[in-house]
């Protein structure tokens, strides 16, 4: 078998980039599923497959498959019909419906998907859902309707749902849990990806989970294996998310002094928690919350901070150059940290970093290490997410101008979700491993891979 020949995209978080042995097993599983073999035939195939599985296991260990061709992932190749056909075939095989794109896209972003909230994926699925676990359908719906937002929240909800899936799972006869469970999770992940593109945190969590499942010894009984998996999910949540947040909060506390004026943008659970902890520990500071349309997430940060008694000012992003002269530092959250030190965060963050640099205000980014991603990006165009363009239309009379945008052939609406801040504009990254400069991110990634 030459390298990865399957049509799985590589090189992006959330997709495996493991050795060729894995794809062999996957192709064999597909072939097995396709043929209507009776039990005798399956037995002989099982005898064949065990030496191959034993061969596949040692190949799962290497840390970095350097020699493999990295394919461009399909979710940034929407304007390539061949890639879309491959995706459609894959989804059909997994019994996951394909979500249609909506509306005309701006030319620069025509390689990305653009979905409408009014056309959820569940339109094409049966009620009650049988191919996809009901908890996963519920999660996907909450993602696509925008009810679950925020990198940490999405990842926590995903792990919670996978815990439930593992709890409800039972190994079919003649199958091994370590391989069948991964195969069972694949359609769920495709479904969630169709509802809303996976975030970097979710991608890393899925990679971890798949590794844990594949690494299960085949001598374990099903109950023990399931218990072990649930334990490892709990461990991941506790270490990488909760304890990391505590550590980051402690480190950031050293950086916040009395009398500070801190500028925050949008809603980051980590930054809000850091500020609330600092306030609880007695630091005196005030906060300027910057917000932007259409999501207006800053209102949520405002709510959390004001309830704790922190003095806050609320402005729109258009006013930052007026506020920055009085700001002592800027504290930003991140969706992902890329391998060249760039920070991928909510659209508007790079503007804030740029203007802060112009005013010589230090920019600090808080990010847990589990959001570090091996992708390299220097601009915000190549890989991004396009949200529902109808969100830009104001409700009521204010939206009268934009409401007929679809009929107007020269009008396109663009609702970007993320943007990339170059490392020169970021002064410090506060992670659970300590406070590091942006350029040290690849070092952390290398250390993480060696550990694994």
């Amino acid at each position: 078998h030459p390298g990865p020949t399957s049509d799985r995209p590589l090189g992006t978080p959330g997709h495996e980039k493991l050795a060729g042995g894995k794809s062999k097993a996957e192709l064999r599983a597909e072939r097995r599923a396709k043929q209507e073999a009776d039990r005798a035939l399956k037995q002989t195939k099982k005898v064949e497959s065990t030496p191959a599985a034993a061969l596949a296991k040692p190949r799962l260990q290497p840390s970095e498959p350097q020699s493999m061709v990295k394919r461009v992932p399909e979710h940034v190749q929407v304007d390539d019909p061949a890639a879309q056909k491959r995706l459609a075939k894959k989804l059909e095989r997994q019994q996951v419906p394909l979500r249609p794109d909506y509306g005309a896209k701006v030319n620069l972003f025509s390689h990305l998907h653009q979905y409408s909230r009014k056309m959820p994926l569940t339109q094409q699925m049966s009620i009650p859902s049988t191919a996809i676990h009901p908890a996963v359908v519920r999660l996907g719906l909450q993602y696509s309707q925008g009810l679950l937002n925020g990198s940490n929240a999405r990842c926590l909800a995903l792990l919670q749902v996978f815990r439930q899936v593992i709890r409800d799972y039972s190994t079919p006869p003649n199958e091994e849990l370590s391989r069948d469970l991964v195969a069972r999770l694949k359609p769920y992940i495709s479904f969630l990806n169709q509802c809303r593109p996976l975030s970097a945190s979710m991608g890393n969590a899925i990679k971890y989970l798949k590794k844990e499942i594949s690494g299960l010894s085949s001598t374990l009984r099903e109950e023990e294996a399931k218990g072990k998996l649930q334990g490892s999910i709990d461990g991941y949540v506790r270490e990488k998310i909760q304890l990391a947040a505590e550590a980051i909060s402690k480190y950031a506390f050293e950086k916040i002094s009395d009398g500070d004026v801190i500028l925050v943008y949008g809603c980051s659970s980590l930054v809000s928690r850091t500020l609330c902890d600092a306030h609880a520990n007695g630091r005196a500071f005030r906060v300027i919350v910057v917000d932007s349309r259409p999501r207006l997430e800053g209102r949520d940060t405002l709510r959390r901070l004001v309830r704790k008694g922190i003095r806050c000012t609320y402005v729109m992003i258009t006013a930052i150059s007026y506020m920055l002269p009085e700001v002592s530092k800027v504290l930003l959250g991140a969706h992902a940290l890329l391998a060249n030190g760039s920070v991928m965060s909510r659209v508007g963050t790079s503007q804030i970093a740029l203007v802060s640099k112009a005013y010589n205000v230090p920019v600090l980014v808080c990010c847990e290490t589990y959001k570090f991603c091996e992708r390299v990006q220097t601009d915000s165009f190549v890989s991004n997410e396009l949200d529902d363009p109808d969100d830009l239309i104001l409700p009521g009379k204010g939206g009268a101008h934009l409401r007929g945008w679809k009929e107007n052939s020269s009008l396109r609406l663009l609702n970007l979700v993320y943007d990339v801040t170059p490392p020169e504009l970021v002064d410090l990254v506060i992670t659970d491993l300590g406070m590091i400069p942006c350029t040290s991110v690849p070092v952390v990634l290398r250390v993480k891979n060696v550990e694994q």
Partner: protein
Amino acid sequence: MEFQAVVMAAGGGSRMMDLTSSIPKPLLPVGNKPLIWYPLNLLERIGFEEVIVVTTKEVQKLLNLDTKMKLDIVCIPDDADMGTADSIRHIHQKIKTDVLVLSCDLITDVALHEVVDLFRAHDATLSMLMKKAHEPTEMVPGQKGKKKPVEQRDFIGVDDTGKRLLFMANEADLDEELVIKRSLLQKHPRMHIRTGLADAHLYCLKKYVVDFLAENRSLTSIRSELIPYLVRKQFSSPASLRQRQDNKEQDQKKDQKSLDIFSYVKGDSLLEFAPDKSCWNSHSADLNEAFHGGKVRCYVHIMKEGLCYRVNTLGLYIEANRQVPKLLPALVCPEEPLVHVFAQVTDRGLVGSDSIIGSSTQVGEKTSIKHSIIGSMCTIKDRVKITNCIIMNSVTIEEGCSLQSCLICHNAVIEKGADLRDCLIGSSQRLEPKSKHVNEVIVGSEQLMEI
């Protein structure tokens, strides 16, 4: 499994006794299919494989449907006056997951995922379907003139998005004023109150509501008691209830506490799981967390277009029959022709394109049939004019009759030369030759005794 479907087919059809005295309501033919076929077809189309049908023994004997789903028919005794909630209590051992309750008289082409998605996405306790009711325009036989039926209006309050159900009251329960709780207005300052909405009696309920019903025996009907209870409970806090109960005497029985739905609510919602991490809120005007910390949430989907009928009065029955020929081709797969293959029609040209003729029916020469539905095994002789009629099975119509806007039940015989307009002829009636009736209801004497 995500949902179990329950179809309630034990109701009597008390508002159309002329028809239901001889035929049980679930079996009333609409477009030549029994009424219960429509909700079952809806469930089959969206992908259900098993349905629990709660009905009476009488209906079970006569029920004969060809459907790919597995029907689990539960009979309740004929004489027990069981409401819909009582029926749920009766089958609550079978209910293992969230439940979708339908009434047997619902004919609709709604995209059901709209209702179910509200239920799933918001982790709601209840999700239901409503449609703007319109006045039936058809003349109903037996009605003297177009008098408006005295309906008790329902007041439905929804929030700004039009999805969250905040308030529900029926005119019958109110004296002169609408009473709205302050806690409701504090949490939802903008509320739109609508009347003129017809409830489709289609409910998605969480499993813990079924458990609650099993313990709480005071609720008998889903629509008139359980749903208003749940809607009210959205804005009452469990803490205040517990305080009131502590103040009562010590000899309160323990099971009094469990009559409150809050002790049944299972909080496994993803939205409430890590509320401090997610940056979504259901409202923006104040500092409270999403949903104001309320555990019970009710949602409604109000249909704007499409059909949604509950066939529980004669007028709606006739209206449904009018609309069904347009609806049927989309529902039945593979497509059945409107004129049945085994029907013998002599003059096809005189049969209108939206008329339905059942199997084994014989239609004579020069007989014109327009906008009508004719059942199976009927015999219609020559030179008959049928317009806008609903004719059930095994009816005989002799030569030269003229029928307009009539409803003729099973096994009736109309002798030669009769001229009928806006009439309802009951089962097995026999009309004299050359009889002329306008706007009359002719049923047998034994049916007249039913009150």
